[in-house]
């Protein structure tokens, strides 16, 4: 029983990176209507940059921020160059997903080539685990969980209280009405690419700190969990994504203890399938627009 309880604790830590990634994914998908399969490759980039910064002598937390900024810049670059070209030619949801898959391969194999396909180990100071009730956490793990909570609170308040946050929601709900209200939606969509890219890179960095290794394909491990959480949490809902990430994080860790180690994605997709069977409208959320907003 204690093993299962400990797995719940590990699940909460695992949920930190899933939740940050899912918040970014849901924001990006809701605003742009692009199902970005390349999201995993950008998470790898965020993790690698965080690692590289730490290896160069910087604080890992500063590296995390730089990883997020790098991912944000790469996301905007991809959106403004490659995706916008296909968007102007009228590519639909499926075509755009395939294009982002191609982009992810270019980024991942580009990184693999540049890093000679190495897997890097992150060495952080050894710490003793702290006991919180039945759970054991290191200080770094608690910081990661705290970071995910802070990101959630800031993003939630931002979307509810600020002018830009409301404009993001309005644009996602109805881009035509947003334009007719004087909102320059192209700028709003650009902001969404930048913010979601930052969260994507941050998620990759948090994941790297949690598992202490990173390579060109690390983000792919996290991608399926992120997508399932975003969809499960009612696509487009930041709160839903975070809650779903918590459920998925715990479910995958508990499943590992039960003997399904290495089957994280299968557990996550199985969970999604069950929820969809029970509640088919799960995928409809506020930030999901019925119109492509890919005119970046």
């Amino acid at each position, binding site marked *: 029983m204690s093993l299962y309880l400990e797995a719940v604790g590990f699940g909460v830590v695992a949920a930190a990176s899933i939740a940050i990634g899912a918040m970014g994914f849901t924001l990006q998908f809701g605003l742009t209507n692009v199902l970005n399969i390349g999201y995993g490759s950008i998470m790898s980039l965020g993790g690698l940059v965080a690692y590289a910064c730490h290896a160069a002598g910087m604080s890992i937390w500063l590296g995390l921020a730089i990883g997020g900024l790098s991912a944000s810049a790469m996301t905007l670059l991809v959106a403004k160059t490659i995706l916008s070209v296909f968007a102007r030619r009228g590519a639909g949801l499926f075509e755009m997903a395939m294009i982002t898959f191609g982009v992810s391969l270019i980024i991942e194999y580009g990184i693999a080539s540049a890093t000679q396909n190495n897997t890097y180990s992150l060495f952080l100071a050894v710490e003793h685990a702290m006991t919180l009730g039945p759970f054991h956490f290191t200080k770094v793990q608690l910081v990661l969980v705290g970071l995910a909570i802070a990101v959630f609170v800031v993003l939630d308040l931002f979307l509810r209280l600020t002018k830009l946050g409301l404009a993001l*929601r309005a644009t996602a709900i109805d881009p035509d*009405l947003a334009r*007719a*209200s*004087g*909102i320059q*939606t192209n700028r709003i969509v650009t902001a969404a690419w930048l913010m979601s890219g930052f969260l994507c890179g941050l998620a990759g960095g948090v994941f790297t700190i949690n598992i202490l290794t990173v390579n060109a394909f690390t983000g792919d491990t996290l991608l399926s969990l992120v997508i399932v959480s975003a969809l499960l949490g009612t696509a487009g809902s930041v709160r839903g994504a975070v809650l779903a990430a918590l459920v998925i994080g715990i479910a995958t860790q508990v499943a590992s203890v039960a003997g399904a180690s290495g089957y994280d994605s299968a557990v996550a997709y199985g969970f999604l399938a069950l929820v969809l069977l029970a509640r088919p409208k799960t995928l409809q959320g506020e930030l999901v627009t019925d119109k492509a907003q890919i005119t970046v």
Partner: protein
Amino acid sequence: MADEVSFGYGSLTVVDRVSIQVGPGETVVLLGPNGAGKSTLVKGLIGHLPVLAGAVRFESSDISKVSSPKRVRLGVGYVPQTKDVFPTLSVAENLRMGAYAMPRHAVRDRADEVISLFPALERLRRRRAGTLSGGERKMLAIARALMPSPRMLILDEPTSNLAPKIAKDVLEEVVGRLASAGQAVLMVEQRVEMALEVASFGYVLVQGHVRLARPAQALRESEDELAELFFRGGAPPVPAATGQTGGSA
């Protein structure tokens, strides 16, 4: 507003060389059977469709190539026929989005001013727009469009999907109040009699052309002609020069 203007989709011209004028403080109604091109004309006037020929003018400036958000900033407000509010945002948030181009400090005062025009919205400020009744929702849609103090307001079928009694209230009380307040309004409407009661001038659009352009009173007295136009397509188009004159918007 519309100067010999044509709009369409791709190579298909739906509205062909139409001229329409709306003067300050006037309520002008655009009538016509289904498929006449009214919604296409409105989409073009607000910048959702490119101009194929002619020009869209606002206060003597050519705004044909100005984007939809910039037209709002210039003073052209728009209330769509459907999807006219942000349903998951509150009433207050909808008003705030209507005032997106305004400086932050001015928004609260302006919201109070607009709500004073629609007192029913006062107690609903925190309510999600998607939970409002049809009439309340339309009031909010118009209030949202009024937030940046437009000098010209375009209403696309404001009584669409409303029960007859509520439709009458919206036209007589809401639109009527706008007219009394000196707001220039261009309104597309299917409820011909009700619309002509509140309008000062009317155009009848058939198959993408203006077939009649007369004061509302004169149109009210032309029942047979209107019926002919609505059911059979009627006479040839009115030349652009015979449209209403003297308007400035």
